[in-house]
């Protein structure tokens, strides 16, 4: 008989293992309270406090990941602090940090530069950190909901905008539906295995179960929950509306870090929980369907878009397809390829939205692809930055996107799913079209007469953005260390 009660006796070792999250939680509360007493004119203090807490949390994660004296599992297996979690957390923190830097000049002139943005994102980050460290279905659900609830509110940040409210409403309802499905699936899994602990589920599913069908039944719901979080087709409908409806400053955040968290969630549930040889073919086949649908729908529909944010939303769907390909490959190689894909994607997409912010200014959103017409003549350097981002998305060699796609395709081929690799390759070609179109518009089209001037941004913003984009080239050429890091993390976990 499996012991169904989770005995929690908090010890000092547990607290130490979870120190980064606890620190960030304390910091978030401090900022929440402090923000009340900060005048609007001094709102930058909140900004810097939030950035400082992210940096410190990152440092704690970094230190903890190298400290062998710390427990790798805490709170009775609820919380896991392995290398995969560390990599995910560092990129979640990093891309959130970038999102902060890029969001400020966009939020400020629109009256959205409020403390809520920071506290909500910080709580969402805590949720993501819990999610990628989850060792138990309950803690996974807890982290997921924490992220989701904060995201709903963030999307509605600009509550005077009907578009924002509508997007938030849709997101919330669909999110609630997905969350319900996930919870239902979890209960089925519990029913089948008698365990909520992911390690326990894995152990039980290898033994003779009374109702093995029940486990697969629950697995379908769990896969749907993961697919919703990723935004994989056909569970992607919220993605374009949310990306377009949210203020760009929020899209920056919603589009980047949660993708890494979603990978963490997939890794925890599918590998740690259902990674047995018997179950792998089931979820791999399910994901294959979702991946192909995402690749086709994402790439094809993106072609028809004229709004850059919407185009990037569909492009996200297609990238999720790619990311899923790696997970389908399974094993250490596959998950490492996907982890590499997710982390590099998060910093690429944040740069893309950062460039949109750069071109926007008060009363004007540079959201249409046509707004980028002739950018090269107005600002060659920024056109070049956009070129790099688009080329990286398209998977052009020399840029990191190429390396990421290559790793994923290698993993799929190794898993004997050649047809998936072919579909992925073909879809990447289709996808190149709309990325190249942006480049064409920037370099070969004449700017419209009343071309918008570049938005007012400070030197720090431009410096970070340039560094961010140049990192895409650097990682494309010298991506070895990050790739090795991802591989080691997955192999060690």
């Amino acid at each position, binding site marked *: 008989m499996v012991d169904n009660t989770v005995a929690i006796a908090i010890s000092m070792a547990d607290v130490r293992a979870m120190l980064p999250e606890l620190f960030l939680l304390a910091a978030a509360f401090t900022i929440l309270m402090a923000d009340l007493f900060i005048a609007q004119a001094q709102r930058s203090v909140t900004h810097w406090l939030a950035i400082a807490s992210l940096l410190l949390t990152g440092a704690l994660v970094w230190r903890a990941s190298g400290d062998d004296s710390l427990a790798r599992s805490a709170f009775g297996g609820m919380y896991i602090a392995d290398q995969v979690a560390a990599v995910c957390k560092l990129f979640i923190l990093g891309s959130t940090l970038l999102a902060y830097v890029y969001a400020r000049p966009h939020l400020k002139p629109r009256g959205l530069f409020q403390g809520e943005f920071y506290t909500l994102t910080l709580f969402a980050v805590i949720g993501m950190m819990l999610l990628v460290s989850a060792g138990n279905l309950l803690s996974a659900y807890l982290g997921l909901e924490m992220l989701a609830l904060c995201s709903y509110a963030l999307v509605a940040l600009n509550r005077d905008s009907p578009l924002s409210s509508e997007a938030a409403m849709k997101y919330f309802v*669909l999110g609630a539906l997905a969350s319900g499905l996930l919870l239902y699936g979890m209960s089925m899994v519990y029913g089948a295995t008698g365990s909520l602990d992911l390690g326990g589920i894995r152990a039980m599913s290898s033994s003779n179960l009374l109702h093995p069908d029940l486990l*697969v039944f629950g697995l*379908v719901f769990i896969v749907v929950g993961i697919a919703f979080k990723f935004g994989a087709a*056909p*569970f992607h*409908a919220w993605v374009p509306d949310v990306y377009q409806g949210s203020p760009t400053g929020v899209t920056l955040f919603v589009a980047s870090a949660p993708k890494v968290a979603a990978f963490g969630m997939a890794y925890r549930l599918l590998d740690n929980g259902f990674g047995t040889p018997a179950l792998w073919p089931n979820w791999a086949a399910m994901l294959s369907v979702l991946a192909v649908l995402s690749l086709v729908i994402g790439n094809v*529909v993106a072609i*028809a878009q004229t709004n850059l944010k919407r185009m990037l939303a569909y492009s996200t769907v297609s990238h999720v397809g790619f990311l899923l390909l790696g997970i389908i490959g399974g094993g250490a190689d596959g998950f490492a390829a996907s982890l590499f894909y997710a982390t590099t994607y998060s910093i690429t997409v944040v740069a893309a939205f950062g460039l949109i912010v750069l071109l926007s200014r008060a009363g004007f959103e540079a959201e249409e692809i046509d707004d980028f017409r002739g950018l090269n003549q107005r600002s060659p350097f920024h056109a070049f930055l956009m070129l790099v981002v688009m080329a990286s998305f398209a998977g052009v060699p020399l840029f990191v996107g190429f390396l990421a796609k290559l790793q994923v395709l290698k993993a799929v081929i190794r898993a004997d799913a050649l047809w998936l690799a072919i579909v992925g390759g073909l879809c990447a070609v289709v996808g190149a079209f709309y990325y190249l179109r942006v480049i064409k518009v920037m370099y070969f089209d004449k700017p419209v007469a009343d071309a918008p001037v570049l938005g007012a941004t400070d030197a720090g913003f431009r410096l970070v953005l340039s560094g961010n984009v140049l990192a895409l080239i650097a990682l494309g050429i010298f991506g070895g260390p990050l790739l090795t890091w991802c591989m080691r993390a997955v192999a060690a976990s």
Partner: protein
Amino acid sequence: MQATLLTIALAPLVGAIIAGFFRNQVGRRGAHIVTIAGVAVSCLLSMHVFKLIAFDGLPTYNENVYTWFEAGGYSAHVGFLVDRLTAMMMVVVTFVSLMVHVYTIGYMAEDPGYQRFFSYIALFTFSMLMLVMSNNFLQLFFGWEAVGLVSYLLIGFWFKKPSAIFANLKAFLVNRVGDFGFLLGIAAVLMYFGTLDYATVFANRLAIDGKTIELVAGHAWAVPTVICILLFIGAMGKSAQVPLHVWLPDSMEGPTPISALIHAATMVTAGIFMVARMSPLFEMSETALATVAVIGATTAFFTGLIGLVQNDIKRVVAYSTLSQLGYMTVALGVSAYSAAVFHLMTHAFFKALLFLGAGSVIMAMHHEQDMRYMGGLRKYLPVTYWTAVIGTLALVGTPLFSGFYSKDAIIVAAQSAAHHGGAAFAYAYYAVLFGVFVTALYSFRLLYLTFHGKERFVVDAQHGDAHHDDHGDDHGHHEPGHLAHAPHESPLVVTIPLVLLAIPSVAIAWFFVQPMLIGDFFAGSIFVDIRHAPLAHFAKEFHGVVAFALHGLSTLPFWLAFAGFALATYLYLFNPAMPGRIYAALRPLARVLENKYGFDDLYQALFARGSVLLGRGLWRGGDVAVIDGAIVNGSAAVVERAASIMRWMQSGYLYHYAFAMILGLIALLGAFVWIE
């Protein structure tokens, strides 16, 4: 050692990057300072490495520096193989390059593309070093293409001149033919050896001995022959051997310093170097060697003849270069690799000297290149004159000058090959033998037309404005032979390199002929099968530098050269009306030479026009109709249709979205739970 070698290769690259990308920041002065500093560092370190390897007995350095990629059992490396052959090439390349860099300060002084030019030639130096220092075929190919690229850029340096653009395109296309063969050769090496590392390939070379390949069904070819001929096709393109020689004379459209550096001293000898490096493979195929010898002999003799009827000073030197490359190729063909490489070295010095001298004349003549409007320049350009005399004496093979030893070695080697071998080698021997006469004739013709005789130019009275031509301009706006002011000697930055190049043109052979040709200087770098002993006869005749020079006075080549000298002296110095009469009498022959045997016209008509027609046909039939019409626009239409349908599905209604999710869930459940 690795750090030293990396510095040698990368120092010019750094200079090129600074001069190229930051040209506005560093300015003209900064551009030449950084590039010259980079090349000077390379040159000094190369000499140091040469000393270590050649004299201090340091073993051959062969290490991989960086792994570029690994794919399916094959790993591509950046690595250096530095033996005596490489070390010698490094010194030659960097030294000539350094001289040319300094010279350029004077030659390009008024050019608006000053920084760009320095950036290119420094980049060239880097590429050439990568080529010679490589320890594998892939990096060799990288350097091979990189020097080709820079050559293309520099021939078209004055890109506003249509003739320059024509010339660089021609060079590019003709080299594609050669590179295609070269690449196939490299692919064949990879196919049979599974690796591209020189050392491994050479160590396992016997593995392909006796193997055959059926390129055309029913005809078996020996694998070594196929590989070597393919590789040699690459060398033919780069080293401008008949019939791929047509690009080199046209490359004279580029500025003169690069004609000296790229199209005389270094890049065009890459093919020679490559074949010498591949000597272990070439030694396995008599057929390939005979082919090499015939091609080289044809180039050596027949392109020399064209040089007789050229009036453009640079073109004469260019045809002379072709002819000398032919000599080196003949040496390769008769297995006298060390003689080829030795001639490569001496030729690099004296031909660079001649080119730079020609450039100095051109500067003095305000960019007039037609020798018919020169003459009597001796008294205006004393330094240029004397250095040109030295270069000419070296080129024609005057005893005691460097060129004498290297050229004589080739002729003697060809003679002994002809003695032992078949008709191909006999042909090669007579071609190089009578080539000596031709060489002397055109060389002294150039010297006399330029520096001696009557002044055939007029100095216009109007002084005042020191008018200089803008290089990029069309020079047609002033009448030929009319100068704004009298020619004057070039500045020190031009004459010092001339003098510094004149020294090795005279003396380099004194120190190296013994070890390189007779001793075992190249042991380990160059492999000669025991069946061949190309230089045994030469070694027998050689008893010291001076003794051999004296011995040379009694040999046939010397008297042939002397005959050329005497004929040129009579025709161009004492009886200047005579050449015109001869020309009229031999009109049909002269026309053949002026048309360069019709190669250019043939290629123009057959390949250029043919490919334009083919291209147009494919464009109309294949591109517009099938690819654009059916495939591109057709698939685009399908995608567009699909996109609009899917966009319609993204209706914006929440219940549609939720419905899609539920449908997805049910489909998954259906597929994985109920059906199974």
